[in-house]
């Protein structure tokens, strides 16, 4: 693109009062060689008209020195074919000026400090505009828009049917010989409508009929996925008969050190006989995106020895009892145990969610309806019947055949052909011994991802989702705000594999997963990113000639977007990429970059900052701030007129993971005095939108400390801090204290070299 630049300075919102805009204009015009215009209200119709008029005369790269890039976004949107760079003169310059302590005079050079800060922000913005190129979206040569649904239970059937109803082709894969999953064993299902008291027909048969007659849906039963290679829009799936072992089974992840041992013959190759993960199965089926609905497995409850499962006849799980109920009549006296009791005290069985409370209420109804004098005893610690299911619970309370009490079950034993259930701490004010025909344990619903790879990816980072232990085995990555996001782009989970759910919840959940699978296809088709940088048309480009096969990018990508060849050269899969730039931050050769965000661009911005020599009042500290949380927090800080030290210069980054240590070295070798990374909380409750970015950046910073020491610089000149978006009143202190420390250390000794 041939660029025609123009810069605009807004004098509104106090900018013109606080700064000498003529002088700033001079910096832009003379140093940056860019025409510069001033207007009293750039975001108003008149101000935008001024820009629009220049655009008509050919300007296509626009620098605006005004408010934060987070506001007035529609006002300063001049179309996708224009480059717009904003310099945040309002929130982060004039509103962030340090106020003198009450009663004291402002620093005699305060106005000059502010002017210098503004000038640096304009220099950086102009540099950014010069280095930015318009994105050219990555488009697949051919995109496949079929959605593969793994699992033919309620979740899978629903996802298939809902995707079809929106006009998509679906390939439904079920490992068993028939569709329906576990739900075909259920006699009835929970109430889903007012008055919330009556059991309903199990919807599974109707759903199977609907799906099997749907011409958009093709079905493979008795089939498993051996491996999934490729990327969204072009996944290559190898199938196999259920239980078979094939050479196309997804290989296990083998680390670099492990591979070394295998090569030396000191370790057995776990992938012996398997095709390498990069090999493409010539008979693979191509699909566009995947819904994982492989469901759950009943948890093993035999470990609770006092309850007798596996040792005592007629102690069964809730799943087994349901099958019994489906097949015929259930016994007349049944105890339902909701919590393991004993040492576990008042917790439910693991992986229950609230589903098993409602299952017990349902099954208690079977006891009463199948037997004239049927008696069901529900022994719980906490009945969990959220929302309207409270009314289902209440109706059970009014049923003469159902007895319910809070109780701590200490023992189940055989007693003359019957079973005795011993419980304490009941609401009856006394310990309890129940004589029953059968005991039903509320076994949890463990996601299939807990024990198996399930998704069987042929990816460099291995066949399963990453870090599942953080989420109890569920394939989450952003539990709460963005529940469908997994660590593998284009693969969305629903049903039991996401949470223990009722049928009603599963149907809703599967509909949402179908939406995400569709959205991924449409985004891929447009060549743009999915969440969280939705719509971003840039993607990382690699200058492979200079790659040294260090494998850092392939290892560190939080989303497993990069595969590699036999030598270790990365094989990018742009449609798996979320555009965080962690690969760019990882690369020691600096060969990875985006059209509008790359090593040279940010490095040049760093170098555009004026670094005065021999002036202890004018040290320069660079702050790389995560644009998702830290940067908005800095804006809020400005809105609240918290003062930021005038020596600080902030550059927003896509994620701390994208910060390449070259920028820090550039800053320090340019004579800047300190560098700080400001990003999100990491660890078990991470808040990083790219999951691993802030954690990785912190590790890199630890290493750079050593590098600095070897150069004779204090390692304390570099720091990384974790902040939340709400820390706007704490951030100034964090930054200003850091500046104070640097001031105490004195200027960078390399200044001027």
């Amino acid at each position, binding site marked *: 693109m041939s660029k025609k630049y123009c810069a605009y300075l807004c004098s*509104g*919102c*106090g900018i013109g009062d606080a700064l000498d805009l003529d002088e700033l204009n001079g910096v832009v015009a003379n140093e940056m060689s860019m025409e510069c215009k001033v207007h009293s*209200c750039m*975001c*108003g119709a008149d101000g935008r008209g001024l820009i629009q008029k220049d655009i008509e005369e050919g300007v296509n790269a626009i620098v605006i020195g005004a408010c934060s890039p*987070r*506001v007035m*976004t*529609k006002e300063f949107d001049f179309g996708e074919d224009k480059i717009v760079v904003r310099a945040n003169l309002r929130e982060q310059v004039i509103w962030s000026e340090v106020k003198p302590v009450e009663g004291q005079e402002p620093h005699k050079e305060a106005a000059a400090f502010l002017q210098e800060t503004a000038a640096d922000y304009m220099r950086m913005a102009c540099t950014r505009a010069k280095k930015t190129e318009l994105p050219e979206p990555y488009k697949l040569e051919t995109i496949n828009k079929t959605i593969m649904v793994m699992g033919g239970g309620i979740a899978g059937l629903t996802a298939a049917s*809902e995707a079809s109803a*929106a*006009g998509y082709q679906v390939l439904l894969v079920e490992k068993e010989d028939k569709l329906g999953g576990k739900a075909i064993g259920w006699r009835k299902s929970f109430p889903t409508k007012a008055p919330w008291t009556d059991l309903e027909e199990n919807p599974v048969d109707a759903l199977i009929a609907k799906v099997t007659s749907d011409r958009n849906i093709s079905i493979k039963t008795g089939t498993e996925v051996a491996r999934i290679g490729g990327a969204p829009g072009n996944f290559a799936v190898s199938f196999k008969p259920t239980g078979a072992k094939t050479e196309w089974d997804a290989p296990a992840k083998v680390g670099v050190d492990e591979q070394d041992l295998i090569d030396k013959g000191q370790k057995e190759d776990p992938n012996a006989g398997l095709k390498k993960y990069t090999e493409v199965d010539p008979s693979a089926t191509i699909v566009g995106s995947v819904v994982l609905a492989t469901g759950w497995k009943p948890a093993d409850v035999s470990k609770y020895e006092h309850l007798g499962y596996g040792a005592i006849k007629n102690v069964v799980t809730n799943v087994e009892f349901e099958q019994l109920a489906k097949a015929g009549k259930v016994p007349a006296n049944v105890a339902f145990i909701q919590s393991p009791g004993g040492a576990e005290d008042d*917790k*439910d069985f*693991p992986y*229950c969610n*609230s589903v098993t409370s409602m299952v017990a209420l349902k099954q208690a109804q079977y006891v009463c309806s199948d037997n004239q004098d049927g008696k069901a005893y529900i022994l719980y610690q*906490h*009945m*969990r*019947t*959220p*929302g*309207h*299911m*409270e*009314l289902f619970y209440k109706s059970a309370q009014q049923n003469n055949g159902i007895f319910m009490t*809070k109780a701590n079950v200490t023992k189940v034993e055989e007693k003359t052909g019957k079973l005795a259930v011993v419980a304490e*701490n009941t609401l009856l004010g006394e310990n309890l011994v129940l004589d029953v025909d059968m005991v039903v344990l509320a076994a949890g619903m463990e996601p299939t991802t807990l024990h198996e790879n399930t998704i069987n990816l042929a990816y460099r980072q291995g066949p399963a989702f990453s870090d599942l232990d953080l989420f*109890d085995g569920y394939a989450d990555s952003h539990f*709460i*705000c*963005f*529940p469908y996001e997994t660590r593998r782009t284009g693969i969305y989970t629903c049903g039991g594999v996401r*949470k*223990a759910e009722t049928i009603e*919840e599963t149907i*809703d*959940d599967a*509909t*949402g997963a*179908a*939406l995400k699978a*569709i*959205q991924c296809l*449409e985004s891929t088709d*447009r060549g743009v990113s999915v*969440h*969280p940088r*939705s*719509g971003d048309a840039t993607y990382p480009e690699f200058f492979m000639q200079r790659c040294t096969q260090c494998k850092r990018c392939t290892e560190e990508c939080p989303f497993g977007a990069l595969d590699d060849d036999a030598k270790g050269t990365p094989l990018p899969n742009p449609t798996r990429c979320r555009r965080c730039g962690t690969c760019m931050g990882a690369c020691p050769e600096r060969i990875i970059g985006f059209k509008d965000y790359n090593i040279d661009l940010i490095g040049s911005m760093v170098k555009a900052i004026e670094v005065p020599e021999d002036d202890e009042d004018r040290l320069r500290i660079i702050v790389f701030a995560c644009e*998702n949380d830290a940067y*908005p927090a800095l804006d809020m800080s400005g*809105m*609240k007129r918290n003062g930021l030290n005038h020596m600080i210069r902030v550059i927003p980054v896509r994620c701390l993971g994208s910060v390449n240590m070259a920028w820090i070295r550039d800053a320090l070798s340019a004579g800047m005095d300190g560098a700080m990374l400001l990003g*999100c909380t990491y660890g078990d409750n991470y*808040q990083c939108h790219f999951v691993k970015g802030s954690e990785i950046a912190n590790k890199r910073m630890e290493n750079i400390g050593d590098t600095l020491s070897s150069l004779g610089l204090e390692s304390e000149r570099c720091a990384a801090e974790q902040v939340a978006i*709400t820390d*706007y009143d704490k951030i100034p202190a964090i930054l200003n204290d850091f500046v104070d420390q640097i001031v105490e250390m004195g200027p960078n000794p390399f200044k001027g070299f």
Partner: protein
Amino acid sequence: MTDEQGTSGAILVVGGGISGLTAALEAAEVGNDVVLIEKGPSFGGRVAQLNKYFPKLCPPSCGLEINFKRIKANRRIRTYTMTTVKSVAGGPGNYEVTLEIAPRYVNSNCTACGDCAAACPDEIPNAFNFGMNMSKAAYLPHEMAFPRRYVIEKASLSSAGAEAVKSACKYDAVDLDMKTETVKIQVASIIWATGWTPYDAKKIDNLKFGTSDAIITNMMMERMASANGPTKGVVSRPGDGKAIDSIAFVQCAGSRDENHLEYCSHICCMATFKQMTYVREQYPDAKIYVFYIDLRTPGKYEKFREERMSDANALFIKGKVAQINSESDGGVTVIAENAVTGEKLSQKVDMVVLATGMQPELAVQGAPIAMNLDSSGFVISDMDKGIIAAGCAKKAADVVTTTQSSTAAALKAIQVSRR
């Protein structure tokens, strides 16, 4: 005025809280045109008022910021604040919806410089903080408000105030003559994401809300614990600001009660466990009493409950609170019966938090058009008609369930556009 951009496949999303934002974004990112309307002056809804989310204890504005960014970057979404549905004509696939836009008294010239608020002499109870402090009558709803544009409560403006805000604005953004406007849009389907409102605690006579400063609701606690709240994050007794030595949480305040809300509000147990962390952070030794019927912290939430229950200074009593009485020293006494021991309890505390439940907003506001509501006021979807319920307009739910159900609602709406 007729909307020239309306397309036959567009989706109207009513309500700009986390549910409406999610539904709108998920549909627009597939490629559909979306109109997102919000009754209040800014987006974010109830979650914007929360200090933290359970169980991660992370700030809701973190996720909201990403969603706002997605909206700003998406040319397919048009947003309206201070806007409600006035009427709906036509049928699925071609609804004509008349929207009513209440006057903001601040036009699009506003740069959010804040000069009007600085100049405004008139104050109003701060609704965002449940009236626990005052704000100017010309105000930004809160720091993170999106859109970042001021709003004026004209009815509370004195004539001097009107003059002051007008003359303070350098951008001709204050327009006190602004009138209610109507806009007609064409859409294929409507997603109702009108959310919830805290159940009015005054209706629960025995809990005496409103008779003592020491009795607050869980939503008031959220604002109090927030750094941008009325006390800048300090948890203390309203009125006299007493530090907390003892505090009681009363669960099911209105919920699971046929005289109030017959259903379980789903989130109040976890909200209380979360709020225990607010108290504990500021008062390491305060005594905490939780009165409950059942502790509903299923699945992933069990771990969070376990951590709170291991607190040696926290006592959990299974029993419904019968009565709360004010004491002369500003504190209150909570009276309940322990359901396990049968023992009658009378516990004096400095402050009590009523874990009030969720009532669907439409139960309070009334449905603006003829539509199916259940007896509690939750919206019942009518998929054939392209009327789709999402989030807490549909059922009481936590945030993760809400965002999930709103994603599902987006697909149901898209299906109508493609019929």
